[in-house]
Structure formats: structure tokens, C-alpha cells
């Protein structure tokens, strides 16, 4: 069905000459109405509550953050805060706000607002899964003076500085933060961002308008002052063939959720594809080390060597996707390229399995003490190519004598399955720019879904969390990445990539550090 629709939409564009024709000037100018087709309904456009792309694209435009993060260097730079100090032990963060920024209801963006927001996110609790993890151990915020806010944590929390650059910790006016979670999903979202919410109709669209008089943008942005675009419409277009067609026929200016198999078609009909790897944990098989077979490090290392990442990317994905080269994706802060350790080496894998006592058995599957080397992999249906990718990995591992059985789950079910622990490997990814995501995933003091007892890894992870100095922190993070790979706790495979299709009328639609979109600098020709 899919290919058929794509083929049809290609034929459609081929007939109507080129899909979008570039007209007008090549210099940025104010005004215009951009329509963006979202793959699914945002459900809730409160940036503090939501974590999925289709909610974040519209929600991000409504709020400013204390800081911003340079997507190229990972450096934290001023936005609402013109400067800040971090205590040496990374427990106290003092922000000096720029003066004069206001929320769209006229109230000032001051130290009091910072306190209201962080207190409020903690109050949201599980309604803000991301916020709760960024503010773990939050002790409180002191309003030092109108423009100075001091945030304190019970324990070192170095990732907090990067967290202040995220949409999740974007600031909302008191008229929003005092409302209960359910009341701030479809309206009442008042921020200080370059766009304001006009209307959100579930399953239909999010309409936003430019905020005039906006002068407190991020220090990273090319344009000072208000945004170029007068209006922004995010339309919900769930069918991927229709999304592609709406871009090709000019009914949308940009579309999200471009699947790998749609890329070639869009590209060949003259559309630009923007893409950026999602930072954080790449798509990977994460071991459950409490299980009898995966408890053996040699088995885990063999699996590590028996996966041919390049083949997965070449066969299942598109050239825009990259094979994983570390336990963090290449766009993550403090990422260290450890690609040489992730080379495909089936012979070494076989040797490791031999050493561990696994001898070739019937049907090519290895056996030891009468037991087959058979492992269960659980995965969620949250990314289209998951199944094909895993089936290919299954074939690759069979070559070294490992049998894989795949069990798919809905995303809700998956959370439960992981907690129960009835599996050998779990397939998944997490988007986060800060390397602290490794602590969330692999520290035995956290959720510990891998059931680890590794004090060496724990102490490195704790050190990176307690080090305020970025350079020294990066060293700890690099050691942690190497440890996770060497022990085979995780078998990273490929980096999730966000792909956006745009017509040639659209200029400067930029990815921010978390590979989500920022529309402030965008203009239409």
C-alpha cells in the first residue's frame, strides 16, 4: 500500500511539473503564513508536559528558555538569562535574567516567574516525565532579587544547566503555572516566546501568531527582534501519503514524520530534506544483565561484535541515518567516537562464544549444557522501520549461532514489560542532548532497567553529574560511554534521525540542539 501511494504521489507531481516553484526575493523579509503538516495530533501543547515531536514543534515556539544550546558545539549560551554561575559541586545554579522580557499577558519574566515555573513542574510530577527527571532532587528556588534566581538541588545535578535550554523548562506565565495540568493542554498557554497560541483544535491544527515587540530572543538566532513569519499553522495530517502529497501540491510548506521510504521520492521531485540525528541514546539493544545467558559479559560482547550496523542502515533505512559509533548519538554533548569498537567482527564474536562454552549445535544455534543460545528481544512499535531492522539483526546474529526471538509491544505495554524484566535485550532509544542520559539509563541507583551492579560505572556516572566544568565533565562522560560498550551492556545500532520535508519557499528552518524545530528565523520567499 505504502509504495503504491508513494508511486502515485510521485506520478502526480511529475505531471504538474515541479511541485513547488520558488518565486520572489532571496533576501529575508517579514510576513507570511507557513503551514506545517504534523504526523499526529499533539494532544497537549504545554511544553512542560509533553515529550513527543508533534507536540514540541508547536509548543517550542510559545516559550523562551533560560539558556539555549548551540547545536554545533553543545555550548550553553544566553537566552532569557544573560549569565549564570554554577557552584563547583553542581548543586546550586544562579541565573541573572535579562531585563524587560514579558509574557504575552504583560507580566514580567522575572526571578519570581522562574521560581513559579520550577515549583510548578515539580508539582506536575508524573505529568511531566521529562521535567521530573531534569529537576530530580530539586530543593527550591530563591528569588535573590528581581533579576536573580538561585536554584538548589540536594545532590549534584550537572545536567540541570543543559536542561534549562530545553522546551520542558521553558517559562510560562503565572496565569498558566497556577492551573492544574489538565487545564493547560489545549489553551491557557501563555509564554514569552516569539509566537503566541491563537487556537489549538485537537486532531486538526495549532494556530500561532507572531508576537510583536519581541526583543529577547536566543543569542544563537540570526535575527534580532520578532520572528519573520506572521502566522504559523501546524495541521494534523496522519496519513503519510497525504502528507507527502500535500507538500508536493503546495497545500503544506513543510512536513514532519518523513519515513525513510518516502525520502527518495521527495528528493527526486525537487524538495529539500532537512535532517539531523537525534541526540541521546541511539536505537540499541540494551541488555538485561539479571538473566542467565546475558549475565555473561562474553555473550554480550559477542552480540556487540555480531551486529553489522552498516548493513542495517543500508538495507532498512536511508543514507541520512548513521550507524551508531558510541553509546551516545553523535549529536549528544560530550559524545566520543568509539566507532572502531563497534566494527562488525563475526569471527571474534564466534571465538568469544566458544570461550564462554557455547558450542555449535543443531540448526546452527549454539548450545551449552543442553541449553540453546536463544535470547528474547522486546521492542516497541514506536518507529516504523523497527521490525525490519530487528529482523535483519536476527539474521546477522544467527550467523554467529545466536537465536533471537522478537516480541513486539505497544509503547504503553513496553514500559510495563521492561519493568517486569522478562527479556534478555530491550530495543529502544531516548532523545536527550545531555550525556547525563547515560546515568538515567545505566546507573544502578536509578530505575536500573538493565539490572546492573557495576560500581565502576556508577562512580563515573556520578562524577560526570557532580562536575560543573564542561571539559572535565566530558572526560567522565567519555569514560562512561566506553565502559557501557566494553561491558556490552548496550549494543547501539543506529542513530534515530529527524527528517523534515520542505518546499523551496522555506528558508532557515533550523534544528535546535535536540533536533527539534525553531521557527524564529524562518522566512518564506
Amino acid at each position: 500500500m505504502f509504495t503504491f501511494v508513494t508511486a502515485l504521489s510521485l506520478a502526480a507531481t511529475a505531471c504538474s511539473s515541479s511541485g513547488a516553484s520558488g518565486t520572489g526575493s532571496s533576501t529575508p523579509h517579514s510576513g507570511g503564513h507557513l503551514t506545517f503538516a504534523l504526523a499526529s495530533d499533539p494532544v497537549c501543547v504545554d511544553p512542560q508536559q509533553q515529550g513527543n515531536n508533534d507536540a514540541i514543534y508547536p509548543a517550542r515556539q510559545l516559550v523562551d528558555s533560560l539558556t539555549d544550546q548551540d547545536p554545533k558545539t553543545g555550548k550553553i549560551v544566553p537566552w532569557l538569562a544573560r549569565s549564570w554561575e554554577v557552584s563547583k559541586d553542581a548543586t546550586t545554579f544562579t541565573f541573572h535574567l535579562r531585563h524587560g522580557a514579558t509574557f504575552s499577558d504583560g507580566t514580567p519574566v522575572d526571578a519570581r516567574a522562574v521560581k513559579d515555573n520550577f515549583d510548578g513542574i515539580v508539582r506536575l510530577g508524573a505529568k511531566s516525565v521529562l521535567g521530573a527527571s531534569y529537576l530530580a532532587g530539586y530543593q527550591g528556588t530563591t528569588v535573590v532579587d528581581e533579576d536573580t534566581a538561585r536554584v538548589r538541588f540536594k545532590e549534584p545535578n550537572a545536567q540541570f544547566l543543559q536542561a534549562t535550554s530545553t522546551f520542558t523548562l521553558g517559562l510560562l506565565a503565572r496565569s498558566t503555572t497556577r492551573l492544574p495540568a489538565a487545564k493547560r493542554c489545549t489553551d491557557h498557554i501563555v509564554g514569552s516566546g516569539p509566537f503566541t497560541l491563537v487556537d489549538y483544535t485537537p486532531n486538526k491544527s495549532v494556530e500561532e501568531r507572531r508576537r510583536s515587540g519581541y526583543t529577547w530572543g536566543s543569542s544563537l538566532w540570526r535575527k534580532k527582534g520578532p520572528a519573520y513569519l506572521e502566522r504559523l499553522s501546524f495541521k494534523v495530517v496522519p496519513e503519510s501519503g497525504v502528507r507527502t502529497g500535500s507538500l508536493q501540491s503546495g497545500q503544506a510548506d513543510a512536513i514532519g514524520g518523513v519515513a525513510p521510504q518516502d525520502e527518495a521520492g521527495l528528493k527526486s521531485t525537487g524538495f529539500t530534506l532537512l535532517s539531523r540525528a537525534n541526540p541521546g541514546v541511539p536505537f540499541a539493544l540494551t541488555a538485561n544483565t539479571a538473566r542467565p545467558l546475558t549475565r555473561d559479559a562474553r555473550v554480550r560482547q559477542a552480540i556487540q561484535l555480531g551486529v553489522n550496523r552498516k548493513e542495517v542502515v543500508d538495507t532498512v533505512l536511508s543514507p541520512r541515518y548513521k550507524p551508531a559509533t558510541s553509546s551516545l548519538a553523535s549529536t549528544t554533548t560530550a559524545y566520543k567516537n568509539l566507532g572502531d569498537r563497534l566494527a562488525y567482527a563475526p569471527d571474534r564474536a564466534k571465538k568469544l562464544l566458544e570461550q564462554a562454552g557455547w558450542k555449535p549445535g543443531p540448526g546452527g544455534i549454539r548450545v551449552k549444557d543442553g541449553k540453546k543460545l536463544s535470547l528474547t528481544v522486546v521492542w516497541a512499535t514506536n518507529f516504523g522501520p523497527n521490525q525490519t531492522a530487528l529482523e535483519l539483526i536476527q539474521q546477522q546474529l544467527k550467523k554467529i549461532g545466536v537465536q533471537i526471538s522478537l516480541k513486539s509491544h505497544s509503547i504503553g505495554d513496553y514500559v510495563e514489560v521492561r519493568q517486569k524484566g522478562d527479556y534478555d535485550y530491550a530495543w529502544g532509544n531516548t532523545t536527550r542532548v545531555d550525556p547525563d542520559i547515560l546515568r538515567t539509563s545505566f546507573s544502578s541507583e536509578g530505575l536500573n532497567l538493565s539490572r546492573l551492579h557495576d560500581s565502576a560505572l556508577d562512580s563515573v556516572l556520578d562524577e560526570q553529574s557532580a562536575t560543573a566544568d564542561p571539559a572535565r565533565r566530558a572526560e567522565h562522560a567519555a569514560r562512561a560511554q566506553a565502559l557501557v560498550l566494553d561491558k556490552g551492556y548496550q549494543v547501539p545500532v543506529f542513530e534515530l534521525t529527524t527528517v523534515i520535508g520542505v518546499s523551496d519557499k522555506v528558508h532557515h528552518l533550523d534544528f535546535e540542539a535536540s533536533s527539534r524545530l525553531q521557527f524564529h528565523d524562518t522566512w518564506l520567499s
Partner: protein
Amino acid sequence: MPRYLVQRLLQAVFVLWAAFTTSFVVLYLLPGDPVSIMASGGGDTNDVSPEQIAELKRTYGFDKPLIEQYGDRLWHALRGDFGISVQNGDPVTRLIADQLPATLQLTSAALLLATVLGAGVALAATYTRRRWLRQALLSLPALGVSAPTFWVGLILVQVVSFRWGLLPAIGNEGPQSLVLPAITLAIPTSAVIAQVFAKSLRTALAEPYVETALAKGASRRRVHFGHALRNASIPPLTVAGVLVGNLLAGSVIVETVFSRTGIGRITATAVTAQDIPVVQGLVVFGALAFVLANLAVDLVVPLLDPRVTGAAAPAVTR
């Protein structure tokens, strides 16, 4: 008449209760739960702690014993309160009421189109004397039923909207956005109407009075469109409940393909998110629509054919 009505009403109440209860049981038997789905953020496989899940379950009352939850929900539902959406906190009844106009527009336009189309095909097929034409017309319903709505919708979007640029592909603003979805939804519905109507027309035309009328000198056209048409129109009416079901089910697909808002769309998203209160509200709503359609038919049919409720129309002799 009153006894007949009371009987019908009791039946209706039973159907509604059964729909409510079945949906409750099915939703709880499914693996996964709405809270975990929501907490996982919808995109990534985020790590969520058991404490966070437990806290959310408490907020929505999903931690209480099942029987208590059932009793609670039923008690509130009796008063028209189906609770709030787990996804965004909106009251379910308001959610459905907000989406209803868009779906009503779509389904009534589709029903109108389907009736014209279906009746037209049936009348033409039974009236024509050309055998090949009759065969061709009579094979249309089978074709219409078997063409997947999803596929028909996509073809229409690709050709009419993307290739010819005649009509919008997305959204539901203005009458022009209604054309393609209504046609897509009307096709399977008209097939059902045509099938049932053609059959009942043939039955009616085989009745002895037709020959009598023709023998008395009535024209073939008069007998066909006068006598037979009226008598043959009851069986299609009795499948109205089924048609309402078809239209509602079809709206899930049509509203998704054409990016429209409405009952179908919220059904699709609520089922994916296992949003129990919303799904239950929608199931009961669907059952209510079905029951009302049947009730309306039950009231209309006796007017067309008094034999249906013998006691209600003593004046008629058989």
C-alpha cells in the same frame, strides 16, 4: 403502540448497558494501559519509574479494584458523565459533543449521496431490459463493498486534489472539503443500499398485483416507479441501523485519510492511546446512534406498511 414502544425502549437500554460493559471488559483485558502510554511520551521509549506510573494511576482512579471502577463509571455514565480524557483532561461528553457536528455533516452528506446512488443503481438495474446492462449494474454493489475505503480515499486525494488541484486534501473547512470524503464514505454505503433495494424491488415486481396492474393497462414505468417502489422501500429502511454502524466505522478511516476532525478521528486516537473513558464514551455513543436509528425505523415502517404492528392499525384488513 405504547407496549410496542416500551418493549423497544427496554431493548435499547439493554443494548446501551451491554455496550458499556463489553467495552469496559475489553479495555481492561488489553495489554498495556493508558497511563503508561501517556507517560512514555508517545515517541521515545523513555524510562518511566513505577512510582510515576502509580501516581498517575491514582490520579485517574485506575488503582481501585475493577468492580469498584466499573460501578463508579456506570453510576456516572447513567448521569451522562463519562469522566475525563486521560490524554488531555477534557470531559468526554464535551469532547464527543464538540466533534459531533463535523461527523454529522460528513455522514449525512454521505448517506444522502449513497441513497441517491444506491437507489438509482437498483432502480435502473431492475427497470432495464438490456441483460448486459442489468448484469453490469448488479455487479456494482459487490464492487463497492469490496473496494477498501482507505484505498478509494487515497486515490481520490491523489488524483483530484494533488494532481488536478480541484479540491483540498486536508481539513474540514467549507463545503468543498466535504466532497471527496463524502464520496469515499458513500461508496460502500450505497453498495449496501443498492443490494438490498434491488433484491426487494425484484421481490416486489414478482408479486401478483404487478401483473394485475399491467393487465389493467398501467404502463411499465408506472408499475415500476409507483407500485413496486413504495412496497420495495421497506427492506432498505430496516437496514438503517447497519448503515449507521457502517457510516460511523467508515468515518474512522475517511476522517484519517482526509485529515478531518470528528468522531472517527477521536476514536482512532483514543484507541491507540487506550484512553478508556473516551473509548467507552464513544462505544456507548455508537450504540446510542444504532439504537436511535432502529427506533426511528420502527416508528416509520408502520406508517408505510401498517401490517408490521397489526394491533396498532386495526383499520387495515389483510
